[in-house]
């Protein structure tokens, strides 16, 4: 009988718990999480926008832990890991759980830049966990002027939710356009307009540099780098995240910017693995799930090599405007850039040395999954450039006669 402990109940932690149970029906599995309830971070905006309740953003069955016979210790922060004695301490080191194999799935935390007052003010929130969403919900009940720092997917998620509820939302973005990592100027313009139509205001190419506070330290005005003052009731930080590594560092597990892992997702401590955002390998949900699965397989003794993920990929869906963005649209030097634009669609392909290196599609993104595969695997498309926007798997068609699945033929 082996004892498995997982720290974190996000995409990686939960996937690992399920995978371990699938491989080890009898062993003891414990999940310790700061979160009270399992929830999908990618659906927080559905809660904040009051489209769904808390059970509605759970991504597993309500009886997940009971059904799988997994111990869940919620609302607890792990304070220390004794990697010699193989014991995890939580609850102010008052409680402990021994382990044979341990998974760190501690995720990432939002980053607050060193702007005066921002790090101390009680009305500055992240938008990362359900606890953040609950705090924002509470603040929004008292004041509807919202200032959001950052217009990436997290910032826009929060903005879309609060615009829906009639908030007066201002977003400051350092880059000259919205969602700078995923868009080009045209696609960004489309999203900017649709947000503006819903009452959102953008301040582009500018950042916050100071703030005015009231007697309790709450920020009442954000002061921009050009001196402009924007009054607000509260602030949401969406200027990026950092892997949560403090626990690893405190426990002598090797970490610098992120927790270091090898190709089996093993950390520097024997029997300790890491998966998800805390490894710094990727920041998207599918990769966190894949890492949770691979780490759990290795923990269960099934040798699984985890191949480095391709992190440049995302989809977005705001107010019914959908976009798929894969690869690097910004690296155009020595590349050919093809654009296709109609009233309803905008597509862009970046091609270098006969290979697709970036692809963006705004509009109907049905059946677009193959573009990620082509980019990630550097598949030769030089003979297919004339129909680059109409490629289907039919262009690479192959069937595995044995099991009937498809295979790429290139």
């Amino acid at each position, binding site marked *: 009988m082996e004892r498995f402990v997982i720290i974190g109940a996000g995409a990686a932690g939960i996937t690992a718990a399920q995978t371990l149970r699938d491989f080890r029906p009898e062993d003891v599995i414990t999940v310790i999480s700061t979160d009270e309830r399992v929830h*999908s971070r*990618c659906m927080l905006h559905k809660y904040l926008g009051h489209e769904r309740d808390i059970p509605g953003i759970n991504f597993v069955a309500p009886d997940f832990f009971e059904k799988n016979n997994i111990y869940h210790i919620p609302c607890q922060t792990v304070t220390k890991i004794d990697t010699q004695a193989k014991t995890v301490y939580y609850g102010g080191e008052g409680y402990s759980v021994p382990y044979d194999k341990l998974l760190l799935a501690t995720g990432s935390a939002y980053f607050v830049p060193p702007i005066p007052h921002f790090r101390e003010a009680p009305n500055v929130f992240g938008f990362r966990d359900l606890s953040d969403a609950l705090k924002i919900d509470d603040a929004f009940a008292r004041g509807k002027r919202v200032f959001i720092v950052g217009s990436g997917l997290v910032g826009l998620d929060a903005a879309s939710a609060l615009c829906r509820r009639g908030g007066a939302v201002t977003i400051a973005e350092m880059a000259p356009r919205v969602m700078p990592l995923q868009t080009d100027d045209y696609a960004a313009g489309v999203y900017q307009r649709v947000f503006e139509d819903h009452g959102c205001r953008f301040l582009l190419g500018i950042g916050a540099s100071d703030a005015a506070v009231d007697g309790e330290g709450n920020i009442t005005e954000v002061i921009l780098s050009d001196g402009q003052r924007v009054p607000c009731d509260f602030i949401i930080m969406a200027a990026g995240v950092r892997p949560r590594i403090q626990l690893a560092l405190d426990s002598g597990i090797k970490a610098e910017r992120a927790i270091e892992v090898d190709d089996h997702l093993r950390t520097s401590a024997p029997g300790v693995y890491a998966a998800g955002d805390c490894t710094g390998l990727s920041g998207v949900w*599918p990769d966190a799930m894949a890492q949770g699965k691979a780490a759990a397989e290795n923990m269960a003794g099934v040798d699984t090599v985890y191949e480095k993920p391709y992190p440049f990929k995302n989809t977005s869906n705001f107010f019914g405007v*959908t976009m*798929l963005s894969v690869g690097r649209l910004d690296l155009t030097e020595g590349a050919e850039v093809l654009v296709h634009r109609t009233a309803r669609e905008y597509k862009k392909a970046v091609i270098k040395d006969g290979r697709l290196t970036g692809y963006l599609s705004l509009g109907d993104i049905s*059946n677009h999954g193959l573009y990620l595969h082509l980019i990630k695997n550097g598949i030769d498309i030089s003979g297919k450039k004339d129909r680059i926007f109409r490629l289907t798997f*039919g262009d690479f*068609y192959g069937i595995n006669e044995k*099991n*009937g699945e498809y295979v790429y033929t290139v």
Partner: protein
Amino acid sequence: MKRIFIDPAKCDGCKSCTLACMASHQDMTPRRGTLEELRQVLYTLDLTDPTVQSRNRIVSDGKGGYSPLFCRHCDVPDCAGACMSGALQKNLETGLVEYSADKCAACYMCVMSCRYGVPAVTPDRERMIKCDFCQHLEEGPACVRSCPKKAIEVREV
């Protein structure tokens, strides 16, 4: 578990399977009925309605033949492995990748992740569309029953 096996050499591109799929899922609700009843539905199928979507596609292979594109209900499904709402799940008993529209948050990670480009989006951008193996039909997938060339058939794997 079962899978729809494809013999592209037999496909002559008539797209009966595509129409049968649309008929089987008209009004976004799976339709019950016999093959004969489904044929009747074909006469009233509104092809100008963008919500009448097919879950399969037939594309030309550029050499006079055709490449049928059907969901494989993969052994290791990329779509379910990317789903952040729990809406897409691999049913380990039936082998099917099942979709629960109520759970879906329309993030379209599934669309991005399926390397074969199977998942589609709905016109309202609130759901995704993929093969459900016509679980509402006792006789099995409508596409298979409608294929005059027997280019697709359900087999045990």
